[in-house]
């Protein structure tokens, strides 16, 4: 099974700081990490490979420094890493990102399965995985929490929903995005870390992957970010103590005093 795992560099903090003028994320001085959801994608890729054989390639689009993060994925057991890096990719929205990644996947070639994290913790859009599938013309399933079966040309997985899960079958090649319930990511191993130290991280430009520059980066991005802000949560909350009956009674009393229509 040849697997590509898409990996994004994100700031290693929950409080993403924005440049108010350019509306872009301030990355200086913030530790860069692999998008936490992508670590589950890497782990799942490695597990499938251990089961079926084949290769796992980590693929990212980003600034040259992302090569070092990709190197760390080799420490986990990834076979090869590819970084798409070019000025032409700068300022890409999810559509332009998916386009560039799809060209990268084309160049890697012979791919059976592409695994992405369910979303990135900085942009939180959850769009790139499905868009990538559309660009490639592959079927996709999001929020995968378990792969029940995978073999040549076939995958069956559990897709998490709000109140349970759906079982989805797809032909391969396909794209899945995974949730953290799917596995527990491993730590690196010494032998893989040593391999990573020496590994060459492939860096491909827009020309290398034959991308149309009009579809890349800012030029290829129909989305314009007008304003960004971190929402302020100012909800006052109160915990009601006691057993279920007491809690219900207290809650009902509260609601009565609040002049909301109360049923029953």
């Amino acid at each position, binding site marked *: 099974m040849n697997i590509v795992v898409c990996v994004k560099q994100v700031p290693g903090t929950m409080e993403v700081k924005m440049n108010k003028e350019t509306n872009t994320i301030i990355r200086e001085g913030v530790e860069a990490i692999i998008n936490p959801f992508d670590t589950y994608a890497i782990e799942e890729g490695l597990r499938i490979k251990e089961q079926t054989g084949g290769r796992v390639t980590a693929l990212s689009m980003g600034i040259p420094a992302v090569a070092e993060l990709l190197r760390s994925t080799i420490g986990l057991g990834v076979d090869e890493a590819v970084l798409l890096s070019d000025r032409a990719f700068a300022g890409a929205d999810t559509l332009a990102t998916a386009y560039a990644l799809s060209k990268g996947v084309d160049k890697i070639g012979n791919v059976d399965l592409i695994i992405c994290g369910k979303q990135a913790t900085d942009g939180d859009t959850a769009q790139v995985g499905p868009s990538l599938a559309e660009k490639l013309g592959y079927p996709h399933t999001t929020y995968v929490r378990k792969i029940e079966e995978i073999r040549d040309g076939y995958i069956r997985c559990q897709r998490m929903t709000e109140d349970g899960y759906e079982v989805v079958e797809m032909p391969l090649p396909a794209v899945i995005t995974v949730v953290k319930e799917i596995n527990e990511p491993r730590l*690196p191993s010494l032998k893989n*870390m040593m391999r990573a130290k020496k590994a060459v991280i492939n860096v491909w430009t827009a020309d290398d992957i034959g991308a149309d520059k009009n579809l890349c980066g800012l030029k290829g991005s129909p989305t314009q970010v007008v304003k960004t802000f971190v929402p302020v949560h100012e909800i006052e909350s109160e915990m009601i103590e006691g057993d279920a009956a007491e809690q219900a009674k207290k809650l009902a009393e509260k609601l009565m005093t609040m002049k909301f229509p109360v049923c029953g």
Partner: protein
Amino acid sequence: MNYFLTEEQQMIKELAAKIAEEKIAPVAIQYDEEGKFPHDIMKVLADSDLCGVYIPEEYGGLGGGILEMALVVEELSRACGGISLAFAGTGLGTFPIILFGNDEQKQKYLPDIASGKKLAAFGLTEADAGSDAAGVRTTAVLDGDEYVLNGTKQWITNGGEADVYTVVACTNRSKGARGFSAFIVEKGTPGFSFGKKENKMGIRASCTSELVFENCRIPKENLLAREGMGFIVAMKTLDRTRPGVAAQALGIAQGAFEEAVKYSKQRVQFGQPISSFQAIQHILADMAIQIEASRALVYQTCRFIDSGAKDFSKESAMCKVFASDTAMKVTTDAVQVLGGYGYMKEYPVEKKMRDAKITQIYEGTNQIQRNVIALELIKEFSKK
């Protein structure tokens, strides 16, 4: 301080630190409380290739030496001095095979230990043979192609949990310590069982048990080196592994120190963080001085041994004494810095103080180490 570790050693240290932070620190207090053996953590170490750092490459290890072993022990001990002992105790049980095993014995046992599939233990101590190891009473009698073992070993680290045991027994009582021999005994051998598991002050996630031999027959191929070499096997092994105990002490001290610094900056009394009081500052400074001195001595001793030095009993004893006395002092002071909170089990330093104590006792008490050092000194000076 930059200790000019090689790239590989740096990687080992970082990886061990990552495991300690992510996997060990969150469970350290619980495992201590329950006396739970850390098989799960050993699995993580195995998957990370750390189990074989000190085992030669031709037997599936990484080909490192005592320094590599010490780096792992130090980092694991920073989070828990008991959990780290599953790894360190295996080292103690494995070195007799590395140092004195023949190729067949190495082929048979080392790869599984290197991969983390098997743990090891070392059995020397008995009820009447503590500091005076020459008091060993367990016997091994050759009968055809087998040795028959009888006797009881006491306080054996990893006892019952390990798969491979290197055991010292008496093959010729009339010769005293020169009549000792060392053997490899596998768990599951008929006649080999485990006695009670000890209830200890500290390192409670480590298992300490009796090994009981009752007409336990082992193939004569399991003899290490030659008959009569047992005492030498034990002494040469301990010379090499004492820096491991030192590294354990060093890690425990480092962990306690970090907790103390962190706490001193948060705890406010008299309207200011206690770290602003000179009395506290000096305690922290002294901790840092002692730990750094201890680290320098431990690493340098390891390098000296790994360089192929022949005689290093004195240096090995020195680093064990210094690092363990430092750990006892630093952990006690850490409890002092945390005050009453330091004395409480919800806070991590009282455990570190309990864990530190053993490092002054096992693999030769610090009194015995001082005897060794003094004896060597007197020998050296009489040559001049």
